[in-house]
């Protein structure tokens, strides 16, 4: 799977003026692909607004990490606050965009990304509040699992993180929007056909007149 393709496509979702939360894993890697002039405030749930990737020549502050535990720096205009303020910001909808990973998503826009019973249950972290309360939730995931099964389902089977919360899904094969009518195929990866994407997707896809490529 082409992970870099997903990350680069996701980076295009960010525009100056936004407040953005990036989940652990794939979403955090977006920081490697954003132009320096992008005027965005990255929120980290451990109490930072204005997180910035640390560069190699900068010294490490042991008290300054992001929510994934990585050493970071801050941009000009940044602020620090406690965990209740951090989640007040999230639950009040002050984060414009959150980008997170998923185990499963479905055609109603529901998300499962915190628990696989009997196999993976490290806890909820900030995922439920971010997914339920952020106006724009963008999901990054591989289109299919290692066995080739679609991760974009008619209905999630795993325990939900939040119901009907997703705006957009970006995979290695497609960009899909969640609308009131259902899932709309917006773009397909270069080299694929629309039919190939439909075949590898369990959920029903609405195919508009114009489907772009990325």
């Amino acid at each position, binding site marked *: 799977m082409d992970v870099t393709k997903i990350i680069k496509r996701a980076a295009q979702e960010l525009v100056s003026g936004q407040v953005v939360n990036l989940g652990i894993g794939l979403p955090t890697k977006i920081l490697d692909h954003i132009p320096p002039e992008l005027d965005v405030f990255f929120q980290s749930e*451990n109490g930072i607004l204005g997180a910035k990737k640390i560069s190699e020549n900068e010294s490490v502050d*042991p008290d300054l990490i992001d929510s994934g535990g990585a050493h970071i720096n801050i941009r000009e205009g940044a602020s620090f606050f406690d965990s209740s303020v951090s*989640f007040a910001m999230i*639950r009040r909808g002050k984060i414009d965009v959150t980008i997170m990973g998923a185990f499963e998503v479905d055609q109603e826009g529901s998300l499962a990304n915190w628990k696989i019973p009997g196999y993976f249950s490290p806890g*909820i972290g900030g995922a439920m509040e971010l997914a339920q309360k952020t106006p724009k939730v963008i999901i990054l995931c591989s289109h299919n699992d290692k066995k080739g099964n679609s991760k974009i389902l008619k209905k999630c089977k795993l325990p939900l993180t939040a119901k009907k919360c997703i705006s957009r899904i970006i995979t290695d094969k497609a960009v899909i929007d969640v609308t009131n009518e259902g899932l709309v195929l917006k773009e397909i990866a270069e080299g694929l056909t629309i039919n190939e994407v439909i075949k590898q997707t369990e959920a029903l896809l609405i195919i508009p007149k114009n489907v772009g490529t990325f």
Partner: protein
Amino acid sequence: MNKQIAIEDVIATIPDGASIMVGGFGNPGTPFTLIDELLKQGQRNLTLIKNDANEAFIGISKLIENGQVNKLITSHIGLNKVVIDMMNQEMLDVEFHPQGILAEKVRNAGAGCYGFLTDVGLDTEITDQESLINYQGKTLKIESALYADFALIHAHSADCYGNLVYESSAMNFSPLMAMAANKVIVETSHLVPATDLVPAHIHTPSAFVDSIVDLALSTHKNTSAGI
């Protein structure tokens, strides 16, 4: 009104079976030296409340690995495989909450209240139908306030009265826990004259703090810092 005390003496006030809030999100803000003294004194049957379980072999993970902890109330322990294994083998009772709900439960206790209403997680398996009520036309979940017997806190700077200042992302749960626990024990790497702290810049006012341990005097210093 000098709240400075020897670390051995103040940790000795914690009995077996105590509930203890521990500040910190990952390493920043974790009171490593107070934890090490608790490990040394060996109190047992503890309930710990912390955002995470630190990483294996450091911080509260040492207390859990040493069998001193019965229950952990937390948000996410994904960076600690040892504690996840102990949970899966039922050697440790773990109660998970969404991170901001955990913070708010602590904050609510710190404000002297008994709970609040939220819609977070209503459509998920974490919601027990018995905790739902109808209020102002909405179905909401009752979240109870979370109190504790003790809080162990790391502050960047403090004065002898117990005014506290935290550093960057080391703040996290600390000011909330310092309000919610009955007894608040603080370690600080910078115990300064009160005149050195700016009143408008103090994060936790002294009234919430019971005891201050000066890390400069501590025999085992802040050994486990650094990721």
